[in-house]
């Protein structure tokens, strides 16, 4: 049975939550597709959104491998994201003081490219993860939360204030495309011809009242120029990052290594009694997740082409937490889904900006909520409400891990595993 030959059968095999999520994803894709066709959503912007969503998915995968696998409550996601972003741009961006210093010291400019930046960012993130992990991973869960948030702030303050390294609050500009200097890909966006897609040959179709409430024109020409090809290249890059990370994490999650992490999450003493060096495993899990987060930062820098200390704001950490809890702690596909939903919320609330004000007539007084400038608080409100509602009614998330996790190929049929989530997580008790 597969989705191609028997979609109905596959669908009925899913749990109700999975069915809901599937329907949601299909509906959302259709919505985007209509947007694309109607010209309401530019193809470059569409790809930008896909890139951003994949980036959040990457961050969520990273956090999931710490919190979801091992139960480490890490509130320094934004810091590792920032380390990734700054790691690569300080080496490769034209306005970077570090790059200048390196060039002055005689390092050949060819070496200071984004690929080396990627490697440096990953190495630095790994080292800082170890440095943060050494003191904090022995702390009980709620202390780890506070300590990691504090250390993340320390990193943000350093990035903000060490102007001679990072340009401080001005941020770093002049970031090259990730593929600068690569054969073919470097010039790919500008070398590609402009393509005009004419979906409805010889004109367009307009749906207007009374068919639907407002006019909607399909089939306008869609112009795919240099920005589109650049965005396409970016999306390909992040999909490679995402695919690789997902592949690695799925493999390790189903391995004996991942099983030790899950044992630590459920009962660290038991893992110790069975001869596992839990501190070492916690450190490995923490570093692994931090590396994935840094990878997301590297991508972000070359997507956005501007990096500033604001990117290390703790709010990013909490967005990612929402994504992981929403998706289901411990579930890799849940983390993917959560990442996409968070971007839908982030970007969806921008539409409020276009809606102007909503006026509620409450008796004699009018309550005016002007949405035009209030995308930010609406987003915050939505995130807050999602957190509270989830924790109250479905702490295990929408797509909790469903299957038994045994190394592939060693068992014939894989039965469903039990739900797991925040409800079962320990914390607050002394060891």
């Amino acid at each position, binding site marked *: 049975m597969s989705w191609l030959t028997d979609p109905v059968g596959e669908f009925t095999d899913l749990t109700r939550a999975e069915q809901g999520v599937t329907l949601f994803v299909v509906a959302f894709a259709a919505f985007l597709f209509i947007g694309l066709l109607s010209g309401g959503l530019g193809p470059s912007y569409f790809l930008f959104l896909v890139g951003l969503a994949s980036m959040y998915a990457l961050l969520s995968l990273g956090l999931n491998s710490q919190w979801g696998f091992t139960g480490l409550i890490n509130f320094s996601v934004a810091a590792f994201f920032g380390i990734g972003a700054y790691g690569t741009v300080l080496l490769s961006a034209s306005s970077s003081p570090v790059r200048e210093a390196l060039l002055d010291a005689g390092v050949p400019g060819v070496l200071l490219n984004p690929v080396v930046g990627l490697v440096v960012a990953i190495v630095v993130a790994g080292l800082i993860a170890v440095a943060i992990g050494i*003191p904090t991973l022995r702390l009980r869960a709620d202390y780890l939360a506070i300590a990691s948030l504090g250390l993340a702030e320390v990193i943000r303050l350093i990035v903000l204030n060490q102007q001679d390294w990072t340009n401080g609050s001005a941020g770093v500009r002049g970031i090259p495309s990730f593929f600068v200097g690569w054969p073919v890909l470097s010039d790919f966006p500008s070398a590609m011809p402009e393509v005009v897609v004419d979906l409805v040959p010889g004109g367009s179709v307009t749906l207007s009242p009374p068919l639907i409430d407002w006019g909607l024109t399909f089939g306008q020409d869609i112009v795919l120029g240099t920005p589109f090809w650049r965005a396409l290249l970016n999306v390909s890059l992040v999909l490679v990052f995402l695919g690789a990370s997902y592949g690695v994490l799925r493999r390790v999650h189903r391995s004996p290594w991942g099983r030790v992490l899950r044992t630590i999450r459920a009962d660290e003493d038991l893992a110790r009694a069975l001869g596992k060096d839990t501190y070492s495993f916690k450190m490995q899990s923490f570093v692994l997740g931090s590396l994935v987060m840094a990878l997301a930062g590297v991508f972000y820098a070359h997507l956005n082409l501007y990096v500033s200390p604001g990117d290390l704001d703790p709010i990013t950490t909490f967005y990612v937490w929402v994504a992981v809890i929403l998706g289901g702690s411990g579930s890799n596909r849940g983390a993917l889904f959560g990442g996409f939903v968070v971007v839908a919320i982030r970007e969806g609330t921008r539409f409020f900006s276009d809606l102007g004000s909503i006026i509620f007539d409450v008796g004699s007084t009018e309550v005016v909520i002007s949405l035009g400038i*209030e995308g*930010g608080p609406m987003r915050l409100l939505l995130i*807050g409400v999602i957190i509270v509602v989830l924790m109250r009614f479905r702490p295990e998330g929408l797509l909790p891990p469903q299957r038994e996790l045994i190394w592939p190929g060693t068992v014939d049929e894989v039965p469903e595993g039990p739900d797991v989530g925040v409800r079962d997580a320990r914390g*607050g008790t002394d060891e």
Partner: protein
Amino acid sequence: MPLLEYLANGLIFSSIIVLGSIGLSLVYSIADFANFAHGDTMTIGAYTALLTFGAIGSLGGAVLGLPFGFFVALLAGIAVAALVAVVTERVVYKPMDVGSIGMLITSIGIAFIYRAILQLRFGADFTRYDVQTLRPIEWLIPYGIRITEHDVAIVLSAAILVTGLHLLLQYTDLGRKMRAMADNPELARVSGIRTDRVKLWTWVIGAGLAGAGGVFLGLYNQLSPRMGFSLLLLIFAAVILGGIGSVYGAMLGGFLIGMINQLMPILTDYGIPIGIEYANAVAFVIMVAVLLVRPNGIMGEAT
């Protein structure tokens, strides 16, 4: 003699941190979770005072450069912060069926909801109370101390509130019950204490003090929807330094963290190249160090 100036500033900032720390510590010990919405409870206090003061005006006379109306607004800030916290406790926290980590995460959601609502109403920009900005007190300037009467008002009000709490804890039945519950909740129940009521009062007192701290923070700096959340980590540092669950520890921790924060310039004066921009970072590093070396804080019993 800049040291006097630093100390004076430390005292003012400490007053605000102490008011925040006490409530966080009380809730931590009684409800058993790290309440990330505590900073935003302070913000609620500040904006309530802003609204109230705007509505009632100065009401005639003034004390220490602050109109009577401002003190009414302060009381309103305390009351509304307490009310909001109690409603949240009853509607959200109490029915929850998750561990302390789940509660912690929930409180982050609550923090966002508080802040978002304030931002929807007041916008994200900075704002000030409509009180006259004062010049530093003349006779202190020769000593190198540049503080205003408003600063004095902050310290005095905080001192009154903290003293009031001390008297409440030591000499009233409610205070004794609160201490008994923090000490040993099971035995408190066995002794016949209606623990639910004491819990509720703890929320009232903790959030009320936070509301007051928020009002003063707005007077000391200015108001913004992020003001409380930005201060939250410093307050956590103070509570952890003093020992979670100990009210007097929170006072001491808040005092120390506030002082350290404002005494930072001394480092550069003595040639240590850590600028005041790292004041918060230093506090967080101290917090982590305390967690490692003495997780029960300086006032808690050593393990």
